[in-house]
């Protein structure tokens, strides 16, 4: 039993929980944060890319001491078949700016740093403490939590749930429905170590410049999913993820899929001679706006992955997590200043504020996309094959005249997907995108 009553309890010390706890503690609120891992980050997994803007709004001078790996100067999007890829690469020296826009990070290190800032701001952090349930008053209002630390309880005016995608507390308390196998992805990832100069020469980088690669195509064997390769200072993060229900039906193993991705002729040379030092897996909420649960209630707010705050199209999540954490924290501070209770009606301010940010605007814009991608698996199988075959036809010089090559490419698309199919896909995509 923790005797003190807190202004707020934050469950979880990932990006969303840390953002919330920091924001409130910095404004003088009494904050208790509970984390089940040995240290913040020890249970957390991400690719990982840090989007500076979301963190700048919380800790403007984070670049001074945050453990950042490389700033991203080049984005590669690969559409792959078994032997090749068609790539769209964007590289710019403009990203070599005083305050770079995106960085690769290593989450276990980054989360630890962020948590240090939270404690400096005055929050109390208890690690190795799993929250087991929410405590409610007779009216059903959430008033605290029970933990597995000798059955200890702690009380607060409001509980902020930043417990992640597989958040059992909120789900078992009936605050949100169970995750569905078709709106959540399973991703596996390995950390491959190489000397930094090897990484820099393989990826055409100088100093702390970094490259990130997002890949789709036959690497997911017809399932809805993507792969990624991110450059860190002395390591490469490589991973692949697919929708859980697709995995269940396919009979494929996640590590087998990752192994095949690593052995792809376009990927293998990038990893040659590396030493793998960790293997991790994590779920990613992919349901977007339509899968979003209730975000607040009497005495509670949900932030980050627990609230399905992931933009699946742009592979953004940690920035949505930090932004929802910050806005939740600001809302609680605002109520405290007005001496108002954390009732459901008052906490509606959280959602009102979120609506003004990119978080809700983007998720609403793409609300039809998750369903579109899951129902149109040929996007991940048929099109990459057609595209890469077309590229080969186009670039191979073999005595066939160019008009015949054009015809061959058009024919391949018509027979691969049929004309109505092609038009239908274009229309469906356009409708889902707007």
């Amino acid at each position, binding site marked *: 039993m923790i005797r003190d009553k807190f202004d707020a309890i934050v469950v979880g010390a990932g990006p969303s929980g840390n953002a919330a706890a920091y924001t409130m503690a910095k404004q003088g609120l009494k904050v208790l944060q509970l984390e*089940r*891992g*040995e240290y913040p*980050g*020890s*249970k*957390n*997994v*991400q690719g*990982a890319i840090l989007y500076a803007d979301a963190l700048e709004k919380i800790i403007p001078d984070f670049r001074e001491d945050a453990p950042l790996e490389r700033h991203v100067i080049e984005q590669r999007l690969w559409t792959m078949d078994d032997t090749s890829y068609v790539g769209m690469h964007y590289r710019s020296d403009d990203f070599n700016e005083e305050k770079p826009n995106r960085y690769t990070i*290593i*989450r*276990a*290190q980054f*989360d630890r740093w962020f948590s240090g800032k939270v404690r400096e701001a005055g929050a109390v952090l208890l*690690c*190795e*403490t*799993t929250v087991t349930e929410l405590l409610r008053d007779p009216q059903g209002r959430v008033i605290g939590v029970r*933990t*597995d*630390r000798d059955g200890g309880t702690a009380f607060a005016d409001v509980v902020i749930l930043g417990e992640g*995608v*597989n958040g*059992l507390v909120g789900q078992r308390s009936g605050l949100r429905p*169970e*995750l*569905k*196998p078709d709106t*959540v992805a*399973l991703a*596996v990832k*390995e*950390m491959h170590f190489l000397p930094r100069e090897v990484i820099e020469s393989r990826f055409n980088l100088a100093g702390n410049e970094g490259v990130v690669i997002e890949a789709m195509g036959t690497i997911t*064997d017809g399932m809805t999913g993507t792969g990624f390769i991110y450059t860190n200072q002395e*390591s490469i993060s490589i991973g692949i993820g697919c929708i*859980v229900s697709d*995995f*269940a*039906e*396919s*009979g*494929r*193993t*996640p*590590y*087998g*899929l990752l*192994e*095949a991705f690593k*052995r792809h002729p376009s990927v293998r040379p990038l990893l040659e001679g590396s030493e*793998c*030092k*960790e*293997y*991790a*897996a*994590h*779920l990613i909420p992919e349901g977007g706006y339509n899968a979003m649960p209730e975000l607040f209630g009497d005495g509670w707010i949900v932030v980050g992955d627990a609230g399905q705050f992931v933009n699946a199209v742009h592979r953004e999540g940690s920035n949505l997590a930090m932004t929802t954490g910050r806005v939740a924290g600001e809302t609680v501070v605002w109520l405290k200043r007005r001496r108002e209770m954390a009732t459901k009606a008052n906490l509606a301010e959280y959602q009102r504020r979120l609506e003004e940010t990119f978080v809700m605007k983007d998720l609403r814009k793409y609300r039809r996309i998750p369903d579109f991608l899951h129902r149109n698996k040929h996007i991940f199988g048929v099109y990459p094959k057609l595209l890469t075959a077309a590229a080969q036809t186009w670039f191979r010089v073999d005595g066939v005249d160019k008009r015949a090559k054009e015809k061959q490419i058009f024919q391949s698309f018509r027979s691969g997907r049929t004309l109505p199919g092609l038009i239908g896909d274009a229309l469906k995509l356009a409708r889902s995108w707007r």
Partner: protein
Amino acid sequence: MMNTTEVGTGAPGAPLVKVEERLFQNRYLVDAGRPHIKIKPHTEPSKALMALTHLCPAGCYSQNDKGQVEAVVDGCVECGTCRVLTAKTGEVEWNYPRGGFGVLFKFG
């Protein structure tokens, strides 16, 4: 530690991949005698439970001689996939390990 040795990728002609070799890189603090995941007794596993024998990224699930699915969760990476997939049938009792126990990611 693990109850699976070599596991295929499921793809025709694909190489065998040892999942334990990957897990050996990881750090764990095993809560001995207190597995955080338990499978409810059954005679015939459901389709979802069977799927876990290939879907679990840590290879924790395997089928025994009697056709039942068993789990050895020492190498669990706590992703929750098995919980989500069997939520409907309720065959898997899933809790987080006690605070401080389980997988410890050095990098994440």
